C-alpha cells in the first residue's frame, strides 16, 4: 500500500509541476503564437513599414473597391477598435466577402496602407443552410434568429 501511495503522490506532483511549467510558457508565448495581428494590435505594436506580418479582421461592409483591371482590389479591415486600408493585386478566395473574416499576409507601406501579398478567407464557426441566410446565431440563447434589419 505504501508504495502505491508514494507513486500516486509522485505522479500528482509531477503533473502539477508540468502544468505549471506549460502555463508559464503559454503566457510568455501569448504574443508570438498569434497567427495574425488585428488592426488595433498592429497599431499598438507600431509595426515598422516594410516589416512582414499578417493582418486579420473583418472586411468592412461597403469598403471593397475592385479596379477595372479586375486584379487590383482595395478594402478596409477592422477589428471594431480600429481599421487599416489594404491593397492587394490578385485573385481573392471564394469566401472573401464584405462582413466576413480575412487574413492578409504582407507589410505596411510608408503611407499606412497594408500591402498584401496573399489573402486568406477566415471562416467563422457558424454553419447553416442557404434558406437561413440572413439569420443570425445568438451566442447567448444558442438559437438561430432573424437578423434585425
Amino acid at each position, binding site marked *: 500500500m505504501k508504495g502505491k501511495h508514494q507513486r500516486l503522490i509522485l505522479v500528482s506532483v509531477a*503533473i502539477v509541476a508540468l502544468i505549471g511549467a506549460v502555463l508559464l510558457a503559454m503566457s510568455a508565448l501569448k504574443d508570438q503564437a498569434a497567427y495574425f495581428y488585428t488592426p488595433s494590435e498592429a497599431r499598438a505594436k507600431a509595426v515598422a513599414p516594410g516589416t512582414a506580418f499578417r493582418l486579420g479582421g473583418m472586411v468592412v461592409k461597403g469598403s471593397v473597391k475592385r479596379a477595372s483591371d479586375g486584379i487590383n482590389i482595395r478594402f478596409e479591415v477592422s477589428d471594431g477598435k480600429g481599421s487599416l486600408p489594404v491593397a492587394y493585386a490578385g485573385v481573392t478566395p471564394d469566401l472573401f466577402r464584405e462582413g466576413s473574416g480575412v487574413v492578409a499576409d504582407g507589410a505596411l507601406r510608408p503611407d499606412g496602407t497594408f500591402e498584401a501579398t496573399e489573402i486568406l*478567407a477566415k471562416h467563422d464557426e457558424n454553419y447553416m443552410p*442557404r434558406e437561413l441566410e440572413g439569420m443570425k446565431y445568438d451566442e447567448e440563447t444558442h438559437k*438561430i434568429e432573424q437578423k434585425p434589419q
Partner: protein
Amino acid sequence: MHAYANPTRFLGVARPLAPWLFWIGIALILGGSAAGLFLAPADYLQGDSFRILYIHVPTAWLGMGGWTGIALCGVMQIVWRHPLAAVAARAVAVPGALFTALCLATGSIWGRPTWGTWWQWDGRMTSMLVLLFLYLGYIALASASAKSGEQGGVSRVTAIYGIVGAINIPIIKGSVVWWNSLHQAPSIGFSGSSIAPSMLWPLGLTVTGFTLWFMAIVILQMRAILANNRIEARLRRMARG
C-alpha cells in the same frame, strides 16, 4: 477496476462486445455519412465543401481522445501497476495516430477551397501536427519496449512520455481561443452549437459510429497482444522443457 486487471476476465467481457461495437460503429458511420452527403442541406457560404466535417470532426475527437486514453493508462500503469492498462495504451497508439493523420488530411482538403490555402502554421494546425509526431514517437517507444519483454505492454518510460505528451491536448483545444488563429472557434460547446440542427444530427451519428468502431479496434488489438503473450509464455516453457 482491479477485477478487470485479470486478462482472462477482461477477455470474457471484451470478446462478445467487440463484434457489436464494430458492426454498430460501421452502420452508424455509413448511415451518418450518407445522411451528411444527401440529406443535410448545403452551407450558405461554403456550399457542399462543408460536408467533410462529418469525417473531420470525429477524426479530430478520436485523435485527441486517443492520447487522453494513453495518458490515463500511463497513470494507471505507473501508480497501480495495472498490467492491462499498458496493453490498452499500446493498442490505442496506432489507430490514434491514423485518426490524427486523417484529421490533418481532411482539414487540409477543406482549407484549400475555404481559406484559400492547403496549410498554414496557425496554432490549431501546428499543435495537431505536434500530436501526430507525439503518436509516432510513442509507437516507436512502445515497439522498442515490446522487444525488451514488457509482456505486451509498454515500458515505464513510454508511460511517462504518454503522460507528459497529454499537455498538448488542452493546447490543441485552447489554440483557437487563446491566440488569433486561422481555424475558427469551436462550433460545439457545452451549452449549444452554432451548427444548424438540420446539419448537426448526421455529425452525431458519425461521431458515435467512429467512437464505437475505434473501441472495437482497440479491443481487437488488445486481444491480439494478449494472445501473443500466451504464445510467448508457452514457447518459453517449452524451451525450458
